[in-house]
């Protein structure tokens, strides 16, 4: 089983699965109340220099209230799993990112991310390593499985592989080349869900994105939830639990926590607000004004929602 090719990209986070096991062993398995505010969760569990990841993607079920709080607290030199739209754009806008494993950071129908361009082209971001979308999800999956790598058939033959930290080996069963992706273990994972109990048992409606994988790949896991429910609600339908409590470090009640993104079956995305960001993000100065208005000048998620306005939020609720 020969290594045929090794990507030249740096491993921004090492796949030390034994250290991950040791870490996981120390996490509490007791049922303890983990509810807290965004401010408490970010203060307690996010450090400068951490490698963090967010779920989902696009402007869907994204943990915006947690991300805003990271910006508010100015956690810096972050390394991030770069797949997203608004949530990562905010971290880039606030100059908090030092390195990233990237697959897609952009504004979807609204085009490229100007914040990404400014941060990369200026050199403020020190390292960028490219991967495909599924590759990053699969790297979480490898960590979630507790193994140091996962074999896939993406990325083969391309510069995406050449500049990544993946390896190509000869499959010992078929003799054909196959790509091995290193596990990606997050220091901190952020996931927004429909409901969770005080212990962290969390359930999601609709597509699950890569929540199961990211949750299991995170050393520290912060959950924000539209609603905190009684544990009996969880116990009455255990097959709906995507994230069991023992993975979770903090549970934050955050109604409209995905705003201006959407939450399926609950509320639609706030198209006007997203456009406001798209416009603001085009220039450094207006970017800063947006951050001032919506993040630095508001105390917390509750104040943010007041700023957005109850009437507007009600309009976004799905029938």
């Amino acid at each position, binding site marked *: 089983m020969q290594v045929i090719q090794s990507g030249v990209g740096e491993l921004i986070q090492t796949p030390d699965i034994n250290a991950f096991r040791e870490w996981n062993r120390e996490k509490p398995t007791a049922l303890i109340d983990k509810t807290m505010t965004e401010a408490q969760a970010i203060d307690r569990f996010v450090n400068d220099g951490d490698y963090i990841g967010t779920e989902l993607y696009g402007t869907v079920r994204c943990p915006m209230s947690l991300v805003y709080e990271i910006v508010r607290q100015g956690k810096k030199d972050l390394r991030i799993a770069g797949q997203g739209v608004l949530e990562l754009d905010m971290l880039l806008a606030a100059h908090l990112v030092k390195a990233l494993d990237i697959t897609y950071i952009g504004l*979807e129908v609204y085009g490229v991310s100007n914040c990404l361009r400014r941060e990369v082209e200026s050199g403020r971001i020190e390292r960028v390593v490219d991967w495909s979308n599924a590759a990053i999800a699969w790297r979480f999956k490898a960590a979630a499985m507790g193994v140091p790598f996962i074999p896939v058939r993406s990325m083969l033959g391309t510069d995406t592989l050449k500049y990544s930290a993946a390896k190509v080996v000869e499959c010992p069963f078929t003799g054909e080349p196959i790509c091995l992706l290193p596990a990606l273990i997050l220091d901190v994972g952020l996931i927004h869900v429909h409901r969770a109990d005080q212990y962290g048992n969390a359930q999601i409606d*609709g597509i699950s994105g890569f929540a199961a994988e990211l949750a299991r790949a995170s050393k520290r896991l912060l959950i924000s939830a539209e609603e905190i429910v009684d544990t009996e609600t969880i116990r009455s339908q255990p097959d709906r639990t995507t994230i069991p409590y023992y993975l979770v470090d903090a549970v934050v009640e955050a109604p409209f926590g995905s705003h201006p993104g959407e939450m399926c079956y609950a509320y639609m995305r706030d198209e006007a607000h997203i456009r406001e960001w798209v416009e603001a993000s085009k220039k450094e100065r207006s970017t800063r004004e947006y951050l001032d208005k919506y993040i630095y000048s508001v105390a917390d998620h509750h104040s943010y929602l007041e700023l957005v306005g109850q009437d507007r939020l009600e309009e976004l609720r799905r029938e």
Partner: protein
Amino acid sequence: MKGNAHSYNSAAEYNPTELLICTASRLMQDNTTAFIGTGIPMLAASLAQRLHAPNLVAIFEFGGTGAILDQLPMAVGEQNTFHRALAASGICDIVETAQRGFIEYGFLGGAQIDPYGNLNSTVIGDYNNPKVRLPGSGGGNDVGSHCWQTIAIIRHDKKRFVERLDFVTTPGYLSGPGARERAGLPPGTGPFRVVTNLAVMGYHPISKRMMLMALQPGITVEDVHSNTAFNLLVADEVEHNPPPTTQELKLLREEVDRDKLYI
């Protein structure tokens, strides 16, 4: 097709985006699986479901399978990607479904394409010191690796149709015949069509180089060559695409994208 499908329109009556959507839509066959990305493929799929392909199985990267595209999705994970769907799972399940050979068509975009259908959506200029940092692969590399037949949708000009990419984000036929298989990509997969505002291209069955197949309304072979920075093969018989029909445009404007988000 239902209704007055054969009432065609002149160029003045539709815009280039509408043309791309209608052309892509016609490539979508009923009862086939298609990996649908953000933007034009979403509109094309929604249009196809309303016309000739009511059972087109739209598959979205973050988990939606078999949605009914009544409402236009704005992102690949949002609720309309699994509206009344048959299944709603996650990205690993979906891309593994493609990796397992279940997804026939995949739609791709990019900033640059080369004669072998390779695509760049990562950087313009040097990778380590980029002139322009683009969004990155996203699902592009995965779609291009696993789907049986990929269809690229891209605006046609010399900056985009280039002999050599600055960065190969997504595999086409790589360096030519046999290169995909040598790299370990699944045999039998690869680029199928390129849809542009000027033409529809395929690939030469032997050399795997891009080949002009059909011209968009009012476009000449010379127009295509003069907007392509590499030597584009030309099929023996180049077809002429009919313009969007009245029915296509009506559905597109009044139902598919009634809020005019794209068109």
